[in-house]
């Protein structure tokens, strides 16, 4: 258990070292800035998830926490102790790697016991710790086997076992489920949730999968281009995305965006233009905009697909595509050439009444729309 604080963390790869690093923003001549202005406080026992697209800097940040990458600028504290220059082995951090990184020449037992042996723990202590961790992960019967003979899921458990056997202050996981098939991934996700209840420690978890992020994290750190876009609980990030990127990245199918809309102010009331109508914003949103003296501006309007309903009244559209996803239907509507996705529960819709190129009407609740400044791309309702 430990508190982790990252203050103004920055990672720059000098031009000469580059090559295998992903493309991104450049700074100073040819230097590559992988992470910038990273500020985060992780409390004791918290489960934090870094999520973002490939190359957004989430793994780099995790590797800086682990000590596998040097921190170019900024301070990194574990329990109020500055550990920028502390060697990885002295940070008391354990890490689970994406490809497991099990030692192929050692049995599962030795893989798990290796770090304890290096610490010169007594044989009985090692044995007791390895066996209790193996029991916790249900891998006792695999202890004498070599990693090559294990399935992906079993290897994953061993990798986790190797980490928890050390009783680390901070537990890092770098996309640990991305090499598993969907079924196994769902299963392991549930196991990580259970594991987290059993071992009291601080978790930092990296993923590009928003479902993992939403289901595992106490808080989510959404990253893009080496910068934090938003930190919040899964609910906060979903309900109040701080900017266009977060709104588009979190939520499947993606939020519907309407790019060429306007925020109007008329007699002290705010309206938005959408589908050739002026829609008055609800009271709560009016107040937020008023409080910051928001002026009229160009905006992007966003509505999540489940927040649009097919109804008897509303805007007329043509039904382009019907996707049956099992428990829900994804309907692609066409309004003046613009594709709008609607998600509706299968149980609430009579499929036989829907067919391609049919004219339908849809509506949405103004309370559930998001408005983003078109230029700076921030959410106008974010406080």
């Amino acid at each position, binding site marked *: 258990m430990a508190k982790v604080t990252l203050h103004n963390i920055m990672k720059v790869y000098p031009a000469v070292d580059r090559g295998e690093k992903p493309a991104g923003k450049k700074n100073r001549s040819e230097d590559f800035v992988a992470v910038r202005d990273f500020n985060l406080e992780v409390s004791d026992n918290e489960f934090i998830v870094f999520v973002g697209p490939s190359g957004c800097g989430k793994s780099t940040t995790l590797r800086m926490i682990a000590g596998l990458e040097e921190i170019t600028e900024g301070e990194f504290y574990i329990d109020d102790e500055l550990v920028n220059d502390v060697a*990885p082995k002295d940070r008391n951090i354990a890490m689970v*790697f994406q*490809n497991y990184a*099990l030692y192929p020449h050692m049995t599962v037992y030795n893989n798990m016991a*290796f*770090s304890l042996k290096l610490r010169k723990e007594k044989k009985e202590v090692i044995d007791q710790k390895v066996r209790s961790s193996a029991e916790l992960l249900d891998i006792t019967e695999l202890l004498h086997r070599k990693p090559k003979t294990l399935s992906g899921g079993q290897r994953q458990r061993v990798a986790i076992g190797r980490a928890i056997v050390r009783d680390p202050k901070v537990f890092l996981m770098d996309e640990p489920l991305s090499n598993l098939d969907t079924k196994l991934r769902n299963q392991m996700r549930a196991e990580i949730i259970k594991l987290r209840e059993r071992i009291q420690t601080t978790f930092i978890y990296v993923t590009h999968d928003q479902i993992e992020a939403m289901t595992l994290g106490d808080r989510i750190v959404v990253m893009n281009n080496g910068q934090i876009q938003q930190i919040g609980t899964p609910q906060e990030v979903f309900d109040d995305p701080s900017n266009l990127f977060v709104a588009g990245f979190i939520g499947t199918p993606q939020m519907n965006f309407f790019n060429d809309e306007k925020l109007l102010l008329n007699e002290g009331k705010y309206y938005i233009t959408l589908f050739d109508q002026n829609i008055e914003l609800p009271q709560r949103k009016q107040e937020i905009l008023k409080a910051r003296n928001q002026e009229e501006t160009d905006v992007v309007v966003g509505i999540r697909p489940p927040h649009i309903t097919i109804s008897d009244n509303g805007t007329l559209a043509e039904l382009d595509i019907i996707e049956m996803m099992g428990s829900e239907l994804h309907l692609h509507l066409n309004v003046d050439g613009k594709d709008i996705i609607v998600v509706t529960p299968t149980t609430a819709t009579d499929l036989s009444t829907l067919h391609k190129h049919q004219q339908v009407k849809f509506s949405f609740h103004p309370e559930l729309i998001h408005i983003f400044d078109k230029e700076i791309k921030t959410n106008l309702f974010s406080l």
Partner: protein
Amino acid sequence: MRSARMKKKGRRRGYLNPSFAFAMPGTLVYSLLLMLPILFAFASSFTNWNGLTINLENLRFIGIDNYSRMMEDTALKTAVGVTLFITVVVVLAVNILGLGLAVILKNSGRMTNIIRTVFFLPYILSSIAVSFIWMAIISYTGIINSFLISIGLDDFIINFSATKWSSIFWICVVEIWRSIGFYMTIYLAALQGVPQELYEACVMDGSGKWSRFIHITLPMIVPQITVAFLLSVINELRIYDVIFVLTGGGPGTSTQSITYNILTQSFVNWRSGYASAMAVALCVVITIIAAVSMKISKKLEVDV
């Protein structure tokens, strides 16, 4: 159906299977230049052939006489001792130093690339050429002695061929210098095949550099260690040309290697039957060493 019928038709007319036809030239050359001489050497090792005569009347089958004579041959015993000594020293040196160099030069950069090339260069020269280069340096009238004399250090001049052990020392130096780049290259390739993640996991587990080398690098490159070890053993057991140029087997016959001895017996003493028997014995020894080390390596090898 059609091709089956064509095949049948082809066979009836007496055509060769095309795959045999394609393999024929290679097989022919290989048989003529390699298999036949080997079989011939094996056969002649049971005869008293002198390597010159084609008069079959004087050629006698003498059974295993040549093989039993080897047991009492003192020159051969010396040669075996010299060869084994050189083999042990050179094999250990090129493998340990080669691996050491590979570890140092693992990360590529402009400077390390140049150094790698410099170390590899001697290997592409013929060993005869390498030996003559070294002769120019270490011989009595060579560069080192000329330099020592020019600065007045006459007392320190080297006479490398004066004694058996100084000769062997310099033979080993030249052999190591010549071949270390090759083994370094094998180890460089081996090191690059070890997944970086394993090292990182090891760092997280709390290991230092030495412990990473022992616990990750070494076990992961066992197959390449076997290959390098085997190649170096085979090369050194067959050592000939460096000795031929540097010492000519001297002083006396004290630095003759097994191969040197075989060639002397065959082309100086004209006892080709006996020389063939020695060659066959050497071949058997090398085969046994190869088989044993493969077996050991298989046990140590890591399945990834």
